[in-house]
């Protein structure tokens, strides 16, 4: 099994009410210095091996026709090593930051 990640974000020119709401809330919570927030979707797909060019092209097609609404969204596709996520109190490894 390989993990493919598809990130889907609203195109930059499209209004992102969710990101805006988050951004506006931050100062109230004491977080300053964040000038913009965009909120999008992240899909993690477990795909059967081998993940060759053909398979990846299929995933890209899937992203374009289904996971993203390309009228308003852009996307990226990439193969990813599984990372460990932080949980509450998170001393988890995180990704390189």
């Amino acid at each position, binding site marked *: 099994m390989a993990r493919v990640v598809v990130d889907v974000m609203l195109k930059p020119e499209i209004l992102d*009410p*969710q990101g*805006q*709401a*988050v951004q506006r*809330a931050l100062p*109230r*919570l004491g977080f300053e210095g964040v000038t913009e927030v965009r*909120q999008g979707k992240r899909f993690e797909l477990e795909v059967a091996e081998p993940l060759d060019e053909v398979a990846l092209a299929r995933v890209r097609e899937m992203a374009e026709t289904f996971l993203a609404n390309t009228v308003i969204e852009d996307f990226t596709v990439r193969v990813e090593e599984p990372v460990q996520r932080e949980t509450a109190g998170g001393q988890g490894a995180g990704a390189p930051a």
Partner: protein
Amino acid sequence: MSGGLGRIGVVTFPGSLDDRDARRAIRAAGGEAVALWHRDRELHGVDAVVLPGGFSYGDYLRCGAIARFSPIMESVLTGARTGMPVLGICNGFQVLCESHLLPGALTRNDHLHFVCRDQRLRIENAETSWTTDYTAGQEITVPVKNIDGGYVADERTLDALEAEGRVVARYLDWNPNGSRRDIAGITNQTGNVVGLMPHAEHAVDALTGPTTDGLGVFTSALRTLVGSS
């Protein structure tokens, strides 16, 4: 309790929708409804608080996630910890979970749609501040309306809720959102804080609701207040 009527506050957050209805339900139950504003730290001497339904802050990010940080929530948290009856309906339930006053969380309905239906429920715990006017096992019908109404928690938490009798109400016939163990409402360990996904406040008048089965939630609280005064 101050004076004659029980005073129950209803908080309005930006995007609250059923606040007016909650106030009407409180009045219908014989209480005095007090409008509270999210930016206000003051509870204005109310004896109990309702966090109403709606889409606070558009439910952007997560339902209840932004509202939880409102100034008034600090006072609500303090009150709740010292025994004040607090009820969260729908979005209010979500705010209570986000505030960690109640365990678990509410996630997207399993069928992914908003659903508005008249829903049969069984009252499982008739001893909370908001359910004493029911009997355990009583079946009632009130509307549900939500898109993020699926109650989730880890198994241990669910088991603990069951064991401690903290499941307040359960869906019957049909689980409208994929809630674990058909949970429609839960309470905290002391029974003063209740989160309820179904909208009891929309079942207080046969003209505008499917039944009057929801009235008991508000009369219960008023009775609790009298008892404790």
